[in-house]
């Protein structure tokens, strides 16, 4: 009997368990998945929780519900990965040996990386919305907040779901408008990049959104510290931005177990081949989703496309065949723009998001890089798709793992 071990039962790990249980012969392979937490969160919902669009119940379910029969599910913390001995140590002292390991340990926020961020004002006037706790604390704050300077801030790249902070700013505009207090709130978007939008097509098509919503932009801001006593963030060029309410996306890092096991880069992300998803250091270890160092977006859709290719590659690896070098960085994301509208973007390693129709060329019904109500309905329907199809490893019809160039208006090469 051989062992396939999956570390992490988040979006990627759960998908891989569901894919592989259908493909690996039960008599030859035992599949085990380990995660320290019992709850599976619908992470895209964390964006809506602060604005009372989703309730806290809508974004979490019991993790065991999504692990298929035939897969051994262990609830324990992972102490160490020992690639030289093909084994993983759990906190309870148990060792699990593996023939193939899939690392799906994700990414998490590390506010302690910036001086003053996670200090005494954390969850008082400084919040994240990338965790269930943060999103919920922020919801309670927003319910009673009387207005002032709202700063939506990105600490450093890469981050999970790179558009989420911008969506947060758009939704905040709608939220305060609906509450009849938009005039009391000043919204500023602060980014370490050259702009809220960084690609030529998107900047051209979408910059009006910031102007229309009265959102100010502070660019090239590389935060050095939070001066929580004087309510301001300060960057390395000594630029200061004052806030009354700071909603920040802290540094994103891979899990500490990756660091403890000496398998990660500076940010604890696992160096991984960008086309095959095999880790660069160990041929029987594969990585998927946010845990990798791939230059793709850290997003559920990316993990979904990766899972289809990784499943194929695991089967090829077992048969001793050459791996498919096929993952192209495909991502497909709805972007909330507020007022019941959303955008849809579809892109990969080499092609920037452009205008067009999706998934049927020339037909749609979804429009790329344009605001529409249909796109917003798509985003809302996605919660159902996530719980019922995506993490169960059901193929989403008409959407291929690699990006299609059909029905899109390309005229300049992405850079």
């Amino acid at each position, binding site marked *: 009997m051989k062992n396939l071990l999956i570390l992490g039962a988040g979006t990627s790990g759960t998908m891989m368990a569901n894919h592989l249980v259908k493909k690996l012969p039960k008599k030859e392979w035992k599949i085990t998945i380990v995660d320290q937490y019992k709850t599976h969160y619908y992470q895209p919902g964390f964006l809506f929780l602060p604005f009372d669009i989703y309730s806290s119940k809508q974004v979490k379910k019991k993790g065991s519900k999504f692990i298929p029969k035939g897969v051994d599910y262990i609830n324990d913390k992972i102490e160490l990965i020992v690639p030289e001995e093909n084994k993983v140590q759990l906190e309870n002292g148990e060792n699990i040996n593996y023939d193939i390991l899939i690392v799906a340990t994700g990414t998490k926020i590390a506010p302690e990386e910036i001086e003053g961020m996670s200090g005494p004002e954390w969850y008082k006037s400084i919040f994240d919305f990338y965790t269930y706790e943060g999103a919920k604390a922020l919801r309670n704050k927003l319910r009673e907040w009387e207005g002032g300077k709202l700063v939506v801030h990105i600490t450093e790249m890469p981050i999970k779901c790179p558009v989420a902070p911008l969506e947060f700013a758009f939704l905040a505009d709608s939220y305060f408008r609906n509450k009849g207090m938009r005039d009391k709130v000043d919204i500023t978007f602060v*980014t370490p990049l050259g702009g809220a939008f960084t690609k030529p097509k998107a900047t051209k098509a979408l910059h009006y959104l910031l102007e229309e919503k009265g959102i100010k932009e502070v660019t090239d801001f590389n935060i050095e510290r939070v001066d929580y006593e004087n309510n301001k963030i300060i960057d*390395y060029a000594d630029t200061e931005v004052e806030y009354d309410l700071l909603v920040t996306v802290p540094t994103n890092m891979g899990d500490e177990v990756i660091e403890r096991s000496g398998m990660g880069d500076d940010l604890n992300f696992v160096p991984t081949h960008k086309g095959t998803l095999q880790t660069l250091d160990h041929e029987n270890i594969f990585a998927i989703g946010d845990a990798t160092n791939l230059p793709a977006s850290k997003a559920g859709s990316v993990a979904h496309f990766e899972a289809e290719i990784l499943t194929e590659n695991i089967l090829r690896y077992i048969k001793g065949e050459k791996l498919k070098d096929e993952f192209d960085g495909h991502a497909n994301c709805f972007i909330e723009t507020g007022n019941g509208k959303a955008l849809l973007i579809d892109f990969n390693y080499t092609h920037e998001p452009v205008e067009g129709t999706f998934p049927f060329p020339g037909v749609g019904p979804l429009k790329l890089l344009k605001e529409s109500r249909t796109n917003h309905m798509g985003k809302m329907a996605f919660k159902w798709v996530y719980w019922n199809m995506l993490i169960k490893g059901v193929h989403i019809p008409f959407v291929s793992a690699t990006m299609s160039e059909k029905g899109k208006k390309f005229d300049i090469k992405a850079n």
Partner: protein
Amino acid sequence: MDLNIAGIRLDVTEDGYLTDVSQWNKEIAIEIAKKEGIELTDKHWEVISWIQEQVKNEVALSIRGIKKSGVLNIKEFYALFPGGPLKKATKIAGVPKPKSCI
């Protein structure tokens, strides 16, 4: 878009980044730097080759990376390329601008 530097026609993005890294050379770097109001010193060249090396190895550029570069610290980086150091240094080094997904 294109840009004429030292009599050579270069393909650049709308914000002035080379689209073809192989077109880059030191004369071009000096001219781009001038447009940014920067006179290149030995330290600048050291930073430029470090950046090019990172990009070649597909390591994402960040301020954090500068901290660990062993070439210079962040304050020095800001002093060499005032304003947006990553943005300016990458433009001069002829490598793509650090970006997000849209």
